[in-house]
């Protein structure tokens, strides 16, 4: 017995030591002699670190001859993984540059965990080969306001962004004739596709422009054999309310949508219903913001988003099907394979292709897809997927003056940021700052997008070589981003800043009181209870906030 106890005690002591060695680490180990070394860490949430390794090598090469401290020439960048920011906020940050998610900016600023990088953000990128441009110039105003609200300084830069919506398989649409032509008839001929909402040849050609177009498309698909219009991951039903937020944003437009965070000016609200048509009035922010914000729950865009979900998506139980998350992705990829049950669209995010690839879904399908020639390009690059544009509310489409088009508005709520640790000083700090600048040239951001099919939450142009290396889907995401207004849920409004957690999507978006109970996912509610209408759920939003 005593033996057992003493063994146990020594085991746990050893483990404690092992654990502490594991988390502390020694930043000096593995440094390259004769160069100024920095360590860059990135969160491994599906983006991986390959893009960062590429960038680090390019950076080392570009500054191989520059000296940042006495007796040393050149730089060496080591790339590691780090945790989500919520886990690191109490830790001693011993790496120099961090790319991470779940980042609560003001927690880090108030705890003095992050270095002031105003110089990096506001001065010219000439040093890294992009004269006349600054990072600040590439940032959306919402970010500028939010990041500098404390003392005018910048402590972080936004990392990547994510969009959510229906993604379709171009080849399946062509095979089965699901495109619209200019006369509004279905066609499989890609050359005859309509010009779409934007009225010019682009990524939205041949796709539904209005709610009723979308309804027609879904009805047509449902009527066909061996294919289901929509698939979604049964464990990712949360995606529905993110997609809803996009539909809501698209109706409101950027300026009105931003009212949900900047709390100023006048915006449209639904004051009542005549039949099932909303009566639209206006509301202006006064002095009592705490009670005024509730009026935002009456934004008409919310009603129309719910209407789309209720009447079109949930309008028929055969419109949608669910599989487990990765099974859903795999089944969607396999849709064009003869003999497999098809799914015309998947509800997913802009990261889905990268993610499905990491999990091996493309590999798995490539074995059963006899159209694929393994001697050519890798399977993922032979496939054509793209986002569906968000259809317009019919009334809005009708009221558009002839010749005028509608610009899509997307929502990107993503708390991924990059920053420099406040522990980094001296020559390391200089190099870390330079590296951040380097990473935010158009060239490097373009390389990031080419590598990951994800876009950075800044404005930049893609390089031609990078565009050619991208998958069809990656290109479509970039094209969609560049032709859309993007809403980032941030502002410098004092009430917003002090209560910002209340205005994250999970709390502010879709929680509603319906029939005495609280619901937070409209999709689940509509499937569970056929009697709940879009208007019921919409009225409940105001009740619940």
């Amino acid at each position, binding site marked *: 017995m005593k033996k057992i106890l003493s063994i146990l005690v020594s085991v746990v002591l050893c483990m404690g030591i092992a654990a502490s060695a594991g988390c502390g680490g020694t930043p000096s180990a593995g440094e390259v002699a004769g160069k100024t070394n920095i360590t860059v860490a990135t969160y491994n949430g599906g983006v991986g670190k390959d893009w960062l390794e590429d960038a680090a090598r390019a950076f080392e090469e570009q500054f191989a001859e520059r000296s940042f401290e006495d007796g040393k020439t050149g730089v060496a960048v080591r790339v590691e993984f780090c945790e989500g920011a919520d886990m690191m906020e109490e830790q001693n940050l011993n790496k120099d540059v961090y790319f991470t998610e779940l980042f609560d900016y003001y*927690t880090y600023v108030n705890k003095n965990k992050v270095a002031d990088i105003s110089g990096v953000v506001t001065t010219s990128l000439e040093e890294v080969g992009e004269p006349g441009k600054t990072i600040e110039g590439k940032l959306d105003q919402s970010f500028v306001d939010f990041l500098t609200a404390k003392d005018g300084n910048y402590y972080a830069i936004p990392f990547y962004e994510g969009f959510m919506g229906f993604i379709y398989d171009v080849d399946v649409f062509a095979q089965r004739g699901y495109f619209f032509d200019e006369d509004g008839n279905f066609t499989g001929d890609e050359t005859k596709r309509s010009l779409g909402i934007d009225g010019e040849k682009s990524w939205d050609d041949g796709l539904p422009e209005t709610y009723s177009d979308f309804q027609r498309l879904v009805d047509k698909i449902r009527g066909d054999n061996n294919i289901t219009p929509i698939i979604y991951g*049964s*464990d990712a039903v949360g995606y529905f309310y993110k997609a809803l937020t996009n539909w809501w944003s698209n109706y409101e437009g950027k300026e009105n949508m931003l009212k949900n965070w900047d709390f100023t000016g006048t915006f449209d609200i639904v004051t009542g219903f005549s039949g099932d048509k909303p009566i639209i009035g206006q509301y202006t922010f006064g002095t009592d913001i705490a009670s005024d914000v509730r009026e935002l729950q009456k934004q008409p865009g919310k009603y129309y988003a719910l209407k789309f979900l209720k009447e079109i998506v949930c309008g028929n139980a055969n419109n949608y099907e669910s599989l487990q998350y990765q099974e859903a992705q795999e089944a969607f990829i396999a849709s064009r394979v003869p003999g497999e049950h098809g799914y015309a669209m998947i509800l997913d995010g802009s990261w889905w292709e990268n993610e499905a690839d990491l999990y091996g879904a493309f590999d798995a399908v490539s074995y059963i897809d006899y159209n694929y020639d393994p001697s050519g390009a890798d399977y993922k690059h032979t496939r054509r997927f793209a986002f569906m544009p968000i259809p317009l509310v019919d009334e809005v489409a009708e009221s558009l003056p002839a010749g005028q088009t509608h610009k899509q508005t997307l929502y990107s709520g993503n708390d991924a940021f990059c920053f420099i640790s406040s522990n980094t000083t001296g020559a390391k700090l200089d190099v870390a700052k330079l590296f951040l600048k380097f990473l935010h040239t158009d060239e490097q951001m373009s390389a990031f997008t080419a590598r990951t099919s994800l876009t950075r939450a800044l404005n930049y142009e893609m390089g031609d070589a990078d565009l050619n290396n991208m998958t069809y889907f990656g290109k479509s995401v970039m094209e969609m981003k560049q032709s859309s207004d993007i809403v980032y849920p941030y502002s410098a409004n004092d009430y917003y800043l002090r209560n910002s*957690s209340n205005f994250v999507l999970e709390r502010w978006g879709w929680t509603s009181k319906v029939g005495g*109970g*609280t619901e937070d996912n409209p999709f689940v509610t509509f499937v569970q209870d056929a009697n709940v209408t879009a208007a019921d759920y919409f009225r409940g939003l105001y009740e619940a906030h």
Partner: protein
Amino acid sequence: MRGHIEEGQRMRKIAKTKVKRKFDKKLLFYIVLMAFPLAQFAVFYVGVNFQSLLMAFQQYDSFETHFYFGNDLLINFKRIGEEIGSLLVMLKNSVIVWFFASFVGTVIAVLFSYYIYKHKRLGIFFKFVLFIPSILPAVLMSSIFQNFVNNIVPVAFDSIRLMDMVETPLDVQFIVAVFYTIWIGFGTQVLLYTGAMEQISPSVIEAAELDGASPFREFWNVVLPSVLPTIGTFLVAGVAGAFLNQVNLFNFFGGSANWSVRTIGYHMFSMSQMKGGEVDYPFLSALGICCTVIAIVPTLLLRRYFAKFEE
């Protein structure tokens, strides 16, 4: 208690005969060993609960990232009032779970235990199997169960999936979760009660059998009274446990179970672990205080009732 006094007297005797220095060493030893557990208690029980009490009257500022006392000290309690509709649904769910787990579950477990106690040979086998669900991680058992009722049951009975967040009707979700929780929870209870039954002195049972008592009388008059204190402990702990019981919902659905199937325990846990959860901490603390107050009365009543059966 008597042992305590006797020991004290002995100690005094020893203290008198030994040199005084020895006594000090003893005190030192006592203090050194007591220090850490007491400090731990002071911080993680007294401190945590005191802070929780304060928090119930505070608010969270996301810009300064701290908790503060606002103008309205009762704001969190007012929010409870605003959300009372859904909270009462969760309270009702918690009470249903508590009732089934504490009373129905206990009755069946005691009867099982009696059978196992009386039939030792079969009992060993039953005991071994019954304890498996409590040995395996709950998350693992619920994963197996969920896959079974979502894959096999629908095919075998041509029914819907029984534990799918979207597809399964909410009342079915709740019934299945409660059923599963009780079904899986027998093992520990049976173990406790058979343990208590085995403590009964064999001579008492023998005497009862010699008297010609029927098995029913034996159960009712001899066995049951001897396990009542154990049952009492279980039921008393069950009251506070009722507000912590998540009915395995987190195992099944993570943080996004539908509000109308939630129990108080699940709701509080899933909100506490949410990203950016600080903003809800004051509200959760206030809710915790209310639940504590609700739990105190039945706890005290049950304690008083079961205290009668001891000694």
